């Protein structure tokens, strides 16, 4: 890097507002959790919630038409900051980053709403929980905006360290600490593979910036092609670990089962969305010139994830574990959108379709999955773990509204019409067909049919068996709010998806550039 220009740096900061705010919020929450006495720690959650809402406003202020002032980002254009020596920005502010950051903030807010009650039940009400959620969102936000390997890796590790802590938050619980250790070890291993791949790509192209890499590939100045290919494959392997795609999924069931339930919801939605954001950035911006090569690899990952995830989920008796395998399957579905873009052969219509499908599904999946995990939080009390299929017996009698909501969430995950999941899958499978990958769409539809079986098992347990207890305690306000938000949006997107499709389309960027 030749010379450091402070004025360029300071001007770039204007695109970093959400991240700066989140960092500050995290520090405030840490301070509060140290300063407040034991009994008042729950208020840290409230402050976190308000802070996340303000962060959402700060993120949205970049969107055109938002009443608040400041610089705007028109759809399809990108603003960048922190350029490297060649002038390529290291940090991007575009519609994609804004939309994804809003999805992360949504996942975090739902997680906090559920956690207030959950931590009370677990007698682990500590303010650090909320601070870690905020730091994880900070990492994700950097990830969504990252345009070079260094920024992306920084965001990834910021997120991952916070999430490892969250998974192991119940220090006294063996399952929680075991899950955290497994998640940490495999996460560190995956990061190593990712870094090795990045170093090979840097060696082959002479740039760690995604635009620089794309330029080197396009102009043919990228060094030995095989070196680049091996690097790209290693990056893909590292990313596949992060999004838990088969065969790199083995950490997911244990981590999901052992983690505190709100955290399970958080890592299966927001953290997965962050992984997809990174995958999209690296492969659509950096490795676009190699699309013909990586599309087939993604297709294999996708088909394997869908099939393995859904078939193994059938065998599970623990609902969290079942949802973990279902989440592996959903990663496979979401990869369909990337494959559609990769095999579009430059057809902009198919590219737009595929991109929209991925972003829309990330949103849809956040609502449905957070809702499903919220119901498990509701069932957790005293001596009842709440995550076994038996625990759902007779829920229709004890909590009729929660049972109905859970049914909607599960139908949405299965992709039944009039729920959000149907719209999401319609776009994803449609994208695969548009891109002449009909065989993948067939695999996906068959897997959706399999998934209906195990989702229906929970519904059957809720409605077709008598309740074991007669006097349920009322659900706390935060949890009720989280379930209501998830339910309303799952039904809303299912019946009238247009505003949400437009929201997802704001995330489009001209691919290949």
């Amino acid at each position, binding site marked *: 890097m030749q010379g450091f220009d402070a004025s360029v740096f300071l001007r770039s900061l204007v695109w970093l507002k959400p991240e700066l705010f989140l960092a500050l919020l995290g*520090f405030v929450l840490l*301070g509060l959790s*140290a300063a407040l006495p034991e009994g008042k720690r729950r208020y840290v959650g409230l402050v976190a919630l308000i802070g996340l809402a303000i962060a959402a406003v700060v993120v949205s202020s970049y969107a055109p038409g938002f009443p608040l002032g400041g610089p705007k980002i028109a759809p399809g254009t990108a603003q960048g900051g922190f350029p490297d020596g060649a002038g390529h920005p290291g940090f991007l502010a575009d519609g994609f980053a804004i939309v994804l950051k809003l999805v992360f903030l949504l996942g975090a807010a739902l997680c906090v709403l559920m956690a207030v009650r959950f931590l009370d039940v677990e007698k682990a009400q500590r303010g650090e929980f909320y601070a870690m959620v905020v730091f994880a969102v900070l990492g994700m936000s950097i990830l969504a905006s990252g345009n070079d390997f260094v920024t992306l890796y920084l965001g990834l590790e910021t997120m991952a360290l916070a999430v490892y802590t969250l998974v192991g938050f119940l220090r006294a619980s063996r399952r929680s600490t075991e899950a955290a250790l497994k998640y940490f070890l495999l996460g560190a291993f995956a990061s190593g593979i990712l870094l090795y791949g990045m170093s090979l790509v840097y060696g082959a192209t002479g740039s760690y910036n995604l635009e620089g890499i794309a330029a080197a590939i396009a102009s043919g100045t990228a060094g*030995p092609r*095989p070196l680049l290919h091996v690097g790209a494959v290693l990056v893909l392997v590292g990313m596949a670990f992060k999004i838990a795609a088969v065969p790199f999924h083995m950490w997911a069931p244990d981590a999901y089962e052992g983690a505190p339930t709100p955290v399970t919801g958080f890592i299966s939605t927001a953290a997965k969305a962050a992984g997809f954001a990174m995958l999209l950035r690296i492969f659509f911006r950096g490795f676009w010139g190699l699309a013909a090569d990586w599309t087939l690899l993604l297709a294999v990952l996708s088909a394997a994830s869908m099939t393995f995830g859904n078939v193994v989920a059938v065998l599970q008796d623990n609902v969290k574990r079942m949802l973990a395998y279902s989440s592996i399957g959903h990663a496979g579905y979401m990869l369909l959108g990337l494959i559609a873009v990769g095999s579009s052969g430059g057809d902009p219509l198919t590219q737009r379709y595929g991109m929209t499908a991925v972003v829309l599904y990330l949103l849809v999946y956040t609502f449905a999955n957070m809702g499903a995990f919220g119901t498990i939080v509701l069932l957790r009390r005293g001596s009842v773990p709440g995550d076994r299929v038996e625990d759902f017996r007779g829920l229709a009698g004890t909590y009729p509204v929660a049972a109905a909501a859970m049914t909607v969430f599960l139908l949405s995950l299965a992709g039944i019409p009039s729920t959000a999941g149907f719209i999401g899958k319609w776009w994803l499978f449609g994208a695969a067909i548009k891109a002449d990958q009909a065989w993948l769409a067939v695999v996906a539809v068959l897997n959706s049919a399999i998934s209906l079986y195990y989702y229906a098992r929970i519904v059957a347990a809720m409605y077709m068996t008598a309740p074991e207890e007669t006097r349920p305690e009322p659900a706390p306000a935060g949890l009720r709010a989280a379930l209501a938000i998830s339910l309303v949006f799952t039904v809303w997107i299912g019946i009238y998806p247009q505003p949400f499709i437009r929201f997802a389309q704001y995330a489009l960027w001209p691919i290949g550039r």
Partner: protein
Amino acid sequence: MTSVGYLPILIFILIALAFPFIAFFLAWFIRPNRPEAVKLERYECGIESSGEVWGRYSVQYYVIAVLFLIFDVETVFLFPWAVRYDALGLFGLIEMGIFILILVVAYAYAWKKGALEWA
């Protein structure tokens, strides 16, 4: 893509695999060999070791060690800034102030949480 194109990759992998063996062989080949009983003893800060390796010690040791490490690393960042102070100027001063402020907040948090009290 012909398999010839992947020859550099094969060579690359072979070198990577051979590297640790070569390094160990070279070290064994070059170094003088004077075995002594003291060398086989466990390491303990360079002083004469006392007690068992598997002895138990307070988990608080780790908290103190991590805190020490953070401030140790802080000085690593302070040195180059001090050396290049002329070039970095006011901008560098403010940047460094923010950096130290972040560490101070963390330190205050750890203090308040009782991480420094030896129980």
